[in-house]
Structures are given as structure tokens and as C-alpha cells.
């Protein structure tokens, strides 16, 4: 009887209570959604997002620059070229360490078996993608998904065989192309992320590698080789 009474009396009160409850639930969901979006954006990048893609791909890109620089130091005694190579080795290897530490901190994989450059080529579906297309995407993502500016295995083998002046000029030409690709990738991530840590390193890459491209152009000319 009592229970029947409770049930019977409930409906008249319900609309007011229910409205409050629904409003509260909506509020909670909205807050949760905003928090989730915010975390995704600035706190912990997604596995498929531009920050992680950049960290992975730029690590591979940098590793080849380090490799070529070691090679040229073995192939020439020219002080200027050896010093430039020394600089590239240390700078880019340290930056690989920084990007690896990001991925460790984000608890994200160091590789994407689905292939490189997906964050750049396909624009991604993460937050903040809108402005990215103009910045660097035009700067050539090769159709096969390879990273821009990478030397081919044949070019690397050629560098290992060359020595003296030819090794220097080949290295400079390869590294100019490599840096141009690196600048394009760094610009691409600048247009796609709001992550301050990523932006800061990407900016230094754009500026540093642009300056080195100018330097290498001058070094090519000094060695009687046309600038590229």
C-alpha cells in the first residue's frame, strides 16, 4: 500500500526533478567532453596525431642525416665540412633523444607499421588540422609515402665510395635536399599542433636548418660546384 502510494505520487513531481537531473547529466557530459578534448590536445597527444607522427618520422629523418655526416667525416679531411658534419651529428642526435623522450612520456609507440608520413600526407583528423595544409604540405610528400629529402640507398652508397672534394660536394648536395625536406616536415607540424614543446623544437629546426642550407650553398660555391 505504501509502495503503491509512492509510485502513484511520483509522476507529478517527476518533470521538475527529471529536468534537473537531465540538465546535470548534460552538464557533466559536456564537462567531460571538454576535459577529454583538452587532454587530447595539449596533455597527451594521440598515437595517430601529428605530434607523435612528427616525433617518429623526424627521428628517422634525423638518423639519416647523422649517418651521412659520419660517412663524410670518414671520407674527407676538409675542416669546414668535418665541422659542419660534427655539428649535424650532435644536434640531430640530441633532437632524436628529445623526440624519443616525448614518445616515452606520451606512452606511444616509436613506430607506425602503417607507414610514415600519414600525419602529414593525409592531413590527419586530429584537432588543429585546419591551418596546416598551407604551411608545408605543398612541399612535396612523395607519392610512396617516403619522407621528403631522404637520400636513396644508391646515393648513400655513392657517398661511401667518394672521397675528398667529390665526397664533400655530394654530401653538401644531399644534405641541402635533406634539410629542405626536414624544414617542410617541421613547418607541417607547426601548422597542425598546439603543443608548446613540439612547436618550440620544430621552430628551432626550421630556423637552424634554413641557416645551414644557406651555409651549405655557400660551401658548394666555394668548392666550385653550382648551388642547388
Amino acid at each position, binding site marked *: 500500500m*505504501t*509502495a503503491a502510494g509512492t509510485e502513484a505520487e511520483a509522476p*507529478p513531481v517527476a518533470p*521538475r526533478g527529471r529536468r534537473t537531473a537531465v540538465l546535470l*547529466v548534460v552538464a557533466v*557530459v559536456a564537462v*567531460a567532453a571538454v576535459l577529454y578534448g583538452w587532454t587530447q590536445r595539449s596533455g597527451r597527444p594521440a*598515437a595517430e596525431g601529428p605530434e607523435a607522427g612528427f616525433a617518429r618520422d623526424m627521428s*628517422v629523418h634525423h638518423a639519416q642525416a647523422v649517418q651521412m655526416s659520419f660517412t663524410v667525416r670518414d671520407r674527407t679531411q676538409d675542416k669546414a665540412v668535418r665541422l659542419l658534419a660534427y655539428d649535424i651529428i650532435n644536434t640531430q642526435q640530441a633532437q632524436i633523444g628529445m623526440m624519443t623522450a616525448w614518445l616515452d612520456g606520451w606512452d606511444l*609507440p616509436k613506430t607506425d607499421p602503417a607507414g610514415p608520413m600519414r600525419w602529414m600526407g593525409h592531413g590527419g583528423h586530429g584537432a588543429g588540422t585546419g591551418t596546416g595544409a598551407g604551411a608545408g604540405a605543398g612541399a612535396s610528400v612523395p607519392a610512396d609515402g617516403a619522407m621528403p629529402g631522404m637520400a636513396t640507398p644508391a646515393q648513400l652508397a655513392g657517398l661511401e665510395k667518394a672521397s675528398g672534394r667529390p665526397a664533400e660536394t655530394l654530401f653538401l648536395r644531399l644534405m641541402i635536399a635533406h634539410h629542405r625536406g626536414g624544414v617542410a616536415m617541421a613547418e607541417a607540424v607547426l601548422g597542425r599542433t598546439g603543443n608548446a614543446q613540439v612547436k618550440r623544437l620544430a621552430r628551432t629546426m626550421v630556423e637552424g636548418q634554413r641557416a645551414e642550407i644557406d651555409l651549405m650553398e655557400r660551401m658548394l660555391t666555394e668548392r666550385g660546384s653550382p648551388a642547388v
Partner: protein
Amino acid sequence: MSTNARSRMPENGPGKPGARKNTPGKGASGKNSPGKNTPAKNASGKNASGKAGARKPAPRKNALTERQTPWGTITFFAVIGLVAAVAIGFAFMQTRSSADAGKIAGLVSKDEPGREHVTTSVKYDATPPMGGNHDPVWQNCGVYGSALRNENAVHSLEHGAVWITYRPDLPKDQVVKLSAKVGATAYTLLSPYPGLDAPIVLSAWGKQVKVQDAGDKRVDEFLRAFVRGPQTPEPGAPCTGGKATA
């Protein structure tokens, strides 16, 4: 009878901790067992009697208080529940998207204490080896058409590489598929390996999984989890600049 039910609670409640839950049954057969009380208890339903009866005896009293369905309480707990659900869901998604090795079916993990550099040949207790003493020169990452020397490849595992090995009779299209994968993925090696007990075996330092087909999703899962993964004894070490031929 409402009064009866109400006054009964304080007696039973503090006296017997267990009594509160069993109010309907106990009440019916206990000291306060007037016949007319039992039907009321039962009528109030199995669910209602436990909660409403124990927590809020008051609403039963009259129409005025009965009207107050505890929307505040309901909303409060609904909100708490929702927040908890969102938090748990969020945490779950976080772990899911991470480099999660826990879900790879058939994954073998093994302690590999040996990390000495030796120029002699090493007897490994796994095929292919997944760690142990090794040659001072690591094998460069990449695709190889013939078998590699264990001692060099194990050194690459120490540097965070994943070594994909396949039985020499693996169909050509599968070898092509694996070659494309390894070609596009830094810190991976691919080579045939005679005598494997599975068509394809993926090895990282102290980690191994065997699959039948190159399209098995565990191939990608293993690469995500272990290429330069947390098992790497020497993080940051290169997979270039070592031995370049099989």
C-alpha cells in the same frame, strides 16, 4: 502500519548489524510480527524495502512526505556514477591507445641476462635467439635475402630492433609483404631462418611471437610495442653503421 514499520527500525538496526538487510524476513517472523505488517513489507517490493525502508523510513509516513521522491539523491549518485564512468572510460582509452604489449596473443617473454660482447659463436636457447651474449658488431637494420649470423642480429635486438624471421619456404607474396613493412619501418630486420617451427617469428630483446601469416595483426602489434620499446637494454643505440651484409 507505517508507524509500526518505522518504529521497528531503530530497534533492529543498531541491535543487529545484519538485521537491517533482512528486515522484511526478520520483521515478519521476529518479535514484531503482526500479520498485517508482513503484507505491507512484501508489497513494497524486494528492491524498495531494502533501500527506502532502511535509509528513509520517513517518506512512508504520509502523503506529504511521500511526494518527495529523492531526486536530489538520485541526481547526486547519477552524477557521481557518470563521472566515475567517464573517468574509467577515459583511463581505459588511454591504456588502449598506448604501446600495449599485454594483449598480444602467444607472446613469449624471457629474461635475457647475458649482454657480453663475444667474438666466438654463442649457443642460444631460443630459435631464433631473443637475447643473450653477442658479437661486438650489430647487424644493420633492413631487408636481407639470406640468413643472418645470430650473434650480430642479437646485438641489434639489444639496440631496440625487431628481427622478423621467416621459414625459407614462406610464399613469395608474404615475403614481399614483410619486405615492404621492414623497408618502411626503422629499427626492423628481415631475414630467412632455416628450421623455424613457425612460418614467421618476430623477436625483440626477451620478446617473441610466432605467426602463421604476414597479414596477422600481431605483426603490427608487436612492432608498435617493441620497436625501440621498453624492453630495449640500450635505448638510443643505432641500427646503422654496423654490419651491412648477411
